């Protein structure tokens, strides 16, 4: 089978599953719905592996071609098509595989839910959208996938649509994403302005020739076109990948069921921005301004969002803030031109973060939807598989040498350390200190949930037991990959020609080449990890967590009391939500009300239409007494009037 046919099948299989489960959910029943959707995603996963093998492992030819012409306007031809290369093949495999695990897990997690079929339909639809996004060969289709994942995420966060908090969160998520999408759309329009096409291959090929192009945004002042394009596109990435200040939707999105927190808000949708920037590397490489902005935004997100994880009590929210922070790491890597490191971390993160979410979900169902860590503790004995898998996930997350997260995160830290860009002065300390923070919140969560005193309430304790195999098997599989995936992948991904010509790095920016000089194989890298600074920072973080939450469990409250101001700042999430709520949500409503009551009702209708309206009012008050029958007369009079007018005009005019 050709790559084109394979690609088409990979895309259509989950779509078919989604359609069957969604439209014929009642007919196929619960088991029918999960069978058909899982089959669809399984087909995608297997075929994605073949594609991955052909393109990446065997180094074969990729594919770039259209599927159909979406539309043609003037000279602009817009197509739907596929670009299969090392980058998209990797993403396809990660997306479909993680999605498959989550589909299986969902059978257990959603077993009691009345919206079972609908849920399977949504997650398959999501998989389809995400695949559309990564397999696209042009900006239009990228935007299709981009918005589609946003919508499905909206549907999934609001899956339990009776809950006020859920439907509040999904609206917020959608609107914040839309702010990013606006930037993204304008970025696409800017690409069209400069390049005259929306096709990746043509744009990237022509990019170097336009390096010095300018466009004027504010009268007379010329900006580098590449900087404008990249910054606008990056605004889109900030929305999808939840970078400060567009990060506010992600923690709230935890209102959705846990499997989608894992699928969307860990493994796939939030990585869309990272993927997109990596895909656009030929453009970003031409603008150091953009790279600096990307790096600084990423650094701010990585550090400050990690801090918030320390004060959360909701287990899913800790993982959510951890995701924000890790996305910050990936963004920093992008800014440092270490695109490969960003994608590598994206890949390892997909495994261990999905693992952590699903483990959290396993705890949550075992405790009958209890999410507050203050009512957990000591669960390791009751849920051994979940416990061990969580430990693996935690170690991978903090970057313990040898675990997958170590390879990718250390790669990023090293790369940023070698960067010459000004932004690295901010980013390097941020990512280093971030390691301490990561270990602190991760082990805080781990200790609070699995160790220490059992604080579970009576009712829940009676039913407390390990989750069923549909839940634990995906956990074990993901745990396995979270351990091993880094070993074979690190060398080709960071230092080899894994991505071939897909990712373009300007020689001056090539930090990974500099990191490579000290690289002597994965084993040596891991061994060296034990004596490097990040390891000791992580160890310190874990030790502090142990001291505060196991050794002296009374201490954290006293610390919070002592540093009350700082603690309040963190609990209030730096005030972003309050500010946005008051300024944007409240502000737009106030403006809307003002424009309506003052503009439309008073000025236009009240003053401008005043005279005639009052006259009409008088006529109306007369007519109102006469019932509908007379309206015919009125209409009739109108026609007669019209005819009279026409006659007058026609015959009053000289017919020369």
């Amino acid at each position, binding site marked *: 089978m050709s790559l084109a046919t394979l690609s088409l099948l990979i895309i259509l299989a989950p779509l078919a599953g989604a359609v069957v489960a969604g439209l014929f959910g009642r007919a196929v029943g619960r088991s029918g719905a999960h069978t058909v959707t899982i089959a669809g995603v399984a087909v995608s996963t297997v075929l994605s592996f073949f594609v991955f093998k052909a393109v990446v492992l065997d180094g074969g030819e990729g594919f770039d071609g259209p599927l*159909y*012409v*979406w*539309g*043609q*306007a*003037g*000279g*602009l031809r817009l197509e739907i098509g596929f670009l299969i290369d090392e980058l998209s093949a990797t993403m396809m495999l990660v997306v479909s595989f993680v999605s498959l695990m989550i589909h299986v897990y969902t059978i257990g997690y959603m077993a009691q839910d009345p919206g079972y079929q609908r849920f399977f339909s949504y997650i398959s639809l999501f998989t389809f959208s995400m695949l559309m996004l990564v397999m696209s060969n042009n900006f239009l289709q990228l*935007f*299709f996938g981009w*918005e*589609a994942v946003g*919508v499905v995420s909206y*549907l999934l966060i609001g899956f339990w*649509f*009776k809950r006020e908090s859920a*439907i509040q969160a999904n*609206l917020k998520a959608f*609107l914040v994403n*839309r*702010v990013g999408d*606006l930037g993204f759309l*304008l970025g*696409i*329009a*800017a690409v*069209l*302005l400069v390049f005259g096409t929306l096709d990746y291959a043509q744009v990237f090929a022509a990019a170097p020739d336009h390096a010095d192009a300018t*466009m004027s*945004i504010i009268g007379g002042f010329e900006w580098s076109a590449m900087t404008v394009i990249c910054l606008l596109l990056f605004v889109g990435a900030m929305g999808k990948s939840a970078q400060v200040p567009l990060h506010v939707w992600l923690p709230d999105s935890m209102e959705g069921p846990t499997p989608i927190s894992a699928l969307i808000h860990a493994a796939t949708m939030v990585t869309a921005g990272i993927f997109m920037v990596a895909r656009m590397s030929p453009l970003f490489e031409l603008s150091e301004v953009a790279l600096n902005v990307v790096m600084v935004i990423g650094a701010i997100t990585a550090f400050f969002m990690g801090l918030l994880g320390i004060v959360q009590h909701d287990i899913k929210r800790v993982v959510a803030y951890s995701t924000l922070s890790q996305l910050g790491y990936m963004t920093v890597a992008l800014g440092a031109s270490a695109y490969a490191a960003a994608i590598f971390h994206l890949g390892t993160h997909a495994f261990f973060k999905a693992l952590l979410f699903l483990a959290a979900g396993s705890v949550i169902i075992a405790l009958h939807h209890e999410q507050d860590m203050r009512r957990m503790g000591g669960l390791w004995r009751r849920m051994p598989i979940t416990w061990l898998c969580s430990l693996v996930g935690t170690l991978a997350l903090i970057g313990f040498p040898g675990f997958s997260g170590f390879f990718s995160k250390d790669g990023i830290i090293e790369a940023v350390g070698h960067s010459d860009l000004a932004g690295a002065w901010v980013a390097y300390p941020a990512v280093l200190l971030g390691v301490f923070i990561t270990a602190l919140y991760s082990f805080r969560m781990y200790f609070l949930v699995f160790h220490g005193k059992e604080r579970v309430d009576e009712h829940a304790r009676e039913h407390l037991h390990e989750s069923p195999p549909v839940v634990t098997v995906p956990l074990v599989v993901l745990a396995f990959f979270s351990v091993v995936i880094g070993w074979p992948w690190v060398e080709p991904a960071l230092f080899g020609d894994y991505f071939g010509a897909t990712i373009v790095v300007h020689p001056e920016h090539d930090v990974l080449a500099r990191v490579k000089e000290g690289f002597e194989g994965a084993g040596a890298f891991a061994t060296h990890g034990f004596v490097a600074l990040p390891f000791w920072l992580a160890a310190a973080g874990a030790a502090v967590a142990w001291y505060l939450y196991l050794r002296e469990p009374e201490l954290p409250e006293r610390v919070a009391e002592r540093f009350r101001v700082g603690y309040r700042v963190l609990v209030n999430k730096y005030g972003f939500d309050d500010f946005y709520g008051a300024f944007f949500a409240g502000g*737009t*409503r106030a403006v*809307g*009300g003002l*424009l309506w009551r003052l*503009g*439309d009702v008073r000025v*236009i209708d009240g003053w*401008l*239409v005043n005279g005639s*309206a009052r006259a*009409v*009012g008088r006529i*109306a008050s007369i007519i*109102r007494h006469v019932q*509908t029958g007379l*309206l*015919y007369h*009125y*209409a009739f009079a*109108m*026609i007669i009037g*019209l005819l009279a*007018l026409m006659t007058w*005009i*026609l015959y009053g*005019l000289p*017919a*020369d």
Partner: protein
Amino acid sequence: MFSDFPFLSLVVWVPILGGVWVLFLGEDNRARNARFAALVVSLLTFLLSIPLYAGFDTGTAAMQFVEHAPWVPAFNIFYHLGVDGISLPLVLLTTFTTVLVVVAGQEVIEHRVSQYLASFLILEGLMVGAFAALDAILFYVFWEALLVPMFLIIGIWGGENRVYATIKFFLYTFLGSVLMLVAFLYLYAQTDSFRILDFHDVKLGLTAQIFIFLAFLAAFAVKVPMWPVHTWLPDAHVEAPTGGSVVLAAVMLKLGAYGFFRFSLPIAPDASGELDLLMIALSLIAIVYIGFVALVQPDMKKLIAYSSISHMGFATLGVFIAFTLLEAPDGRTSAVLGLEGALVQLVSHGFISGALFLCVGVMYDRLHSRRIADYGGVANTMPIFASFMMLFALANSGLPGTSGFVGEFLVILGSFQANFWIALLAGLTLILGAAYTLWMYKRVVFGEVANEGVAGLDDLNPREFIVLAALAVAVLLFGLWPAPLLEVMGPSVENLLDHVARTKL
């Protein structure tokens, strides 16, 4: 083979005469007959309009299916019909929408059934006539005559405040149209002809062009409607019965935008170019200002009405951004984006606003309220309806893959080529449109069952299902594959640009 047969006349006169026939079916105790007859007539008309597309030659900008017969020879007035790529999609939109309205009105309207259905059929014929007329007087007759059935629809089957709404509607639209007639007469004096295509070729001074442009503007801006002559629309929508709202939003508003394409641009291109910034500003105000106003509406129909005004702002923006673009050396490609985007927006808005008004109608028929506050948790009792409304709400927010995206996307792409800030302001609709639509959806459809009324709701019946499903298919089809629509428009838009680029001074 197709073009010899008078399909256009049939599409105009079959519904008008059919409407008169339905009218004679009379009393409400024989309503079944009237309903059946109206359904047959509307379906027949739709079928008759299909050959217009099937036999349409997308390779030319010339008028097709042309019919030409003397009417008032003394003044060179002809019965002259024809369609090109600009009017054909709107004709098909009209025949498609009317079928849905007739089906949707089947059981809902219980008094004066035959008159109700006849009004829509006659209205259909008149609207098609207006889109297809190539003689200015013929156009004017259709244009004014179609006010009458709409006036009756709102005035007889409307809500409590219908008299106020109808008079406001009538005064606004009628006053504007009179100026248009004056412009026609002036052009007649110049050309000794009422052929619209002759008007396109006449040389006019700039002052004359500006006066003509403003006269047309008075007529078309009210119909679109553009800010600040838009306030009749929310009132008319609120009072109109569901079918009236659907036709008003889906088809009648398009007449205004169509007027810009057919009259203002080709007849007064220099004036259009002179006044383009004014028009762009008005369009942006419509998009942004009205977007804000829509946000705070407590009444669903009013909200959708304001949303319509905001979306029509994209149509006018797309039209007039073309002039700014043409000033640039290689701006013609982008100008095509603007114009085609505007046209696609017209068709797409027809589907989406029609569908949303039908959705409100479905709820109104059950609970007799349009107020958002009277609903909540509708998804619990009407899941199928909720799914349809979700699709249309997302389409209204311009989701890619639905037709709502295509026009906005092309217009924003085009605008960006002219000016960053215009594109940015227009793009705000991405946020505002989603905000007002989905916030309404949240309050109406999501949540716990709000009251006993909602608890007792029945999901869609087969009739409602068919209507919404037909629109859903249209919305998705043109979203995923707008190519056929763009192909039909292409040559005519290029031809229009040729006219526009050539000075008429």
